[in-house]
C-alpha cells in the first residue's frame, strides 16, 4: 500500500511531448482513473509509474521513497496489461504463482496465496489449464489474480477491459471495483471509456496532449468542467457549445447567440463567451430559455431519445430527452433549458468562467 506522488513529470519522444509536466497526488488506497483520448499520454504516464518507461525529467515517489530511477522489479508494483500478457507456456497456477516464485517464497506459501487469489477471481477450477484453453474473460481474471497475489504497493491497469465484450465488461467493472475496495490497494487505471471512469474511479484525472486537464470526482468533473476539453470529453452525447455576445446593463447580462437569448444574473466580464449546455439538460416545451429548432435526425435508445436539430442560423444542437418519442425530419420543435445548467467558457483560453 502506498501513496503516490508525481512531480512535474516530463517524457519527450524526440519532438513529441508525451508527458508535459504532470503533477499528481494519489492517496493510499485510492482508485484513480486516467482518462483521455488515445494519444493523450495516459498510457505513457502509467508506464512511467511502472518503470517500463524512463522519464525525461521529474520525480515519482511511493510514500516518501523516490522510485524515479528504480527498475520495475524494485518498485513493488503489479500490472494488468491490455493484452493480459498471461504467459502462454505456463499453466494458470504457475502464471499466478510466478511473481512469488521469483521473490523466493516457500512452496506452501505460494500454494496458499495462489489458491486465495484464484478464489477471489473465481478461477479455482481453471488452475491446471494452459492460457490457450481459456476464454478472453478467463485470461483477464488470471491476469488480475497474478497482479494481486503479492500485496503490491501500487496496482496498475492499462485498459484491462477494452478487449472484453460489452456484457462481460459491465460485469467485470463492478467486480474489479469491489475487489479493489476489499484489498484497499492503491490503483491507477487507464481507460478511454468515460463510463468506466465514472463508475470505478474515486477520482478521475482527465488528460489531453500530455497535460492534466482536471483531477476530481466524477461529479466535480461532470458538473464543473474546468475547460472546454473536459466539458466536451465527459458526457455523452457531447455538450453543445454556442458562441454568444454579452449584452450587459451593469449588473445583469443577456448572452445572445445563434438566435437564443440567455439571461444571466451577473456580468461575465467578456464581450464574447462560449455557452455550454449538455444534451440531457435540454427539455421539450417552453421554459426559462426557450428556442425553436428543426429536427434533422433522431436516435431512439427507447429509454431516451437523442434529437439532432438545427437552430435558425443552421447551428446544430443535440438534445437528449427521457422516453421514447417520435419526430419527423424537418419538424419544428420548441425546446428549453434552465440557466443554472449552463457552463460558460472564455472563447480564447477555453477556460471555465464562474458566474
Amino acid at each position: 500500500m502506498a501513496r503516490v506522488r508525481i512531480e512535474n513529470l516530463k517524457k519527450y519522444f524526440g519532438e513529441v511531448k508525451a508527458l508535459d509536466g504532470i503533477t499528481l497526488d494519489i492517496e493510499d488506497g485510492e482508485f484513480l482513473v486516467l482518462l483521455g483520448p488515445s494519444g493523450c499520454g495516459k498510457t505513457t504516464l502509467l508506464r512511467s509509474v511502472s518503470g517500463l518507461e524512463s522519464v525525461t525529467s521529474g520525480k515519482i515517489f511511493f510514500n516518501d521513497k523516490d522510485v524515479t530511477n528504480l527498475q520495475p522489479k524494485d518498485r513493488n508494483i503489479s500490472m494488468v496489461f491490455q493484452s493480459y500478457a498471461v504467459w502462454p507456456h505456463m499453466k494458470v497456477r504457475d502464471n499466478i504463482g510466478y511473481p512469488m516464485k521469483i521473490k523466493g517464497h516457500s512452496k506452501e506459501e505460494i500454494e496458499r496465496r495462489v489458491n486465495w487469489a484464484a478464489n477471489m477471481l473465481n478461477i479455482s477450477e481453471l488452475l491446471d489449464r494452459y492460457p490457450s484453453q481459456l476464454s478472453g474473460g478467463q485470461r483477464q481474471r488470471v491476469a488480475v489474480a497474478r497482479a494481486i497475489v503479492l500485496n503490491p504497493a501500487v496496482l496498475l491497469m492499462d485498459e484491462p477491459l477494452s478487449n472484453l465484450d460489452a456484457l462481460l465488461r459491465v460485469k467485470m467493472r463492478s467486480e474489479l471495483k469491489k475487489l479493489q475496495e476489499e484489498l484497499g490497494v492503491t490503483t491507477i487505471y487507464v481507460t478511454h471509456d468515460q463510463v468506466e471512469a465514472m463508475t470505478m474511479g474515486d477520482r478521475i484525472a482527465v488528460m489531453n496532449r500530455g497535460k492534466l486537464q482536471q483531477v476530481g470526482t466524477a461529479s466535480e468533473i461532470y458538473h464543473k468542467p474546468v475547460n472546454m476539453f473536459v466539458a466536451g470529453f465527459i458526457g455523452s452525447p457531447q455538450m453543445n457549445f454556442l458562441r454568444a455576445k454579452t449584452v450587459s446593463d451593469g449588473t445583469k447580462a443577456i448572452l445572445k447567440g445563434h438566435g437564443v437569448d440567455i439571461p444571466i444574473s451577473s456580468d461575465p466580464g467578456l464581450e464574447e463567451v462560449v455557452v455550454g449546455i449538455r444534451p440531457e439538460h435540454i427539455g421539450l416545451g417552453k421554459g426559462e430559455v426557450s428556442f425553436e429548432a428543426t429536427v434533422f435526425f433522431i436516435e431512439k435508445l427507447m429509454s431516451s431519445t437523442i434529437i439532432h436539430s438545427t437552430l435558425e442560423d443552421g447551428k446544430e444542437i443535440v438534445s437528449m430527452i427521457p422516453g421514447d418519442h417520435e419526430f419527423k425530419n424537418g419538424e419544428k420543435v420548441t425546446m428549453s433549458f434552465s440557466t443554472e445548467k449552463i457552463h460558460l467558457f472564455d472563447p480564447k483560453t477555453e477556460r471555465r468562467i464562474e458566474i
Partner: protein
Amino acid sequence: MLKKLFFWIAVILIAMWFLTPIVMIFLAAFTPAEDYYNPHKIIPSHLTFEHLYKLLFLLDGWKSIIISVEVALIAIGLSFLIGLPAGYAMARYKFKGKRAINLTILLTRSIPLIVVAVPLIVIYMKVGLSDTVLGVALAHTAMILPFVVLITSSIFSGISVEYEEAGMVFGLTHFQSFVKITLPLALPGLAASAIYSFIMSWNEVFVASILTLTNRTLPAHILNTAMASPDYFKFAAGVMMAVPAMIFIFFTRKYLISMWGISLK
C-alpha cells in the same frame, strides 16, 4: 468424378516429378556395379552397401562428415551468438539507421560467396586460417549470419513485448525476463532456424572447396573424389548428402513452415 480423377492424376504427376530422381539416386546408390551397367536391368537383383562403405571408409568420407558437422556447429554457434542479440534489437527497438542495417543485411545475401572466396583465401593464407575447420566455419558464419538476424528478428516480433514486460513488472530484470519468458516462447522457431542453418552449411560446396585442401567438408570432399569415380559412387555420395538433410527436415517440417510463415508477415 472426372474432377477427382484429374486431381489424382495431377497429384501423381507432381509427386513423380519430385520423387523419381530421388528414387533413382537411392536405387543406383545401392545397385551392384554389374547390374548398374546392364542395360536390361532397371531393378537390381540385390542391394549392396558396398559403394557407401567404400566412400565412407576407403575414401575417408567419415572424416569429412565429422568436419562438416564441426564446421556447421561452429558456424551456427557464432551466428547465433551475434545474430540473436541483433535480431532481438531489430525486433524490439527503434534506432537510427535501422532500415539501413536491414537493407545491408539483405544486400549481403545478394553477393555470391564465390566472389568473396578468392580474396578470402588470400587473407586466410596470411593469417594461417587456410585449410582449417575454423576458416570454413567463419566463411559459413558470414553466409548464415544475415539469415539468422532476419529470422530471429521476425520470430521475436511475433512474441508480444507485453509478455516480457509482465516478467519485468513481476520481479525479473530485462535480461532475466528475456531468458525466462521470451526465449522459451521463441524456442521452436529458433530450433528450426538452427537446423535450417545447419543444412545451409552442410550443403555449401564452393567456399569449402576453395578454402581447404585436406580438411574438406563432405560436399567438397565428394566434389573432389566421387566426381572422378564411376556413376554409382556419385549416387552413393548423393545419398550421403541427402539423408541427414531429409531426416532433419522431416522432424522439423512443422516449425520450418511456421518459421517462414512468421517471416512472411
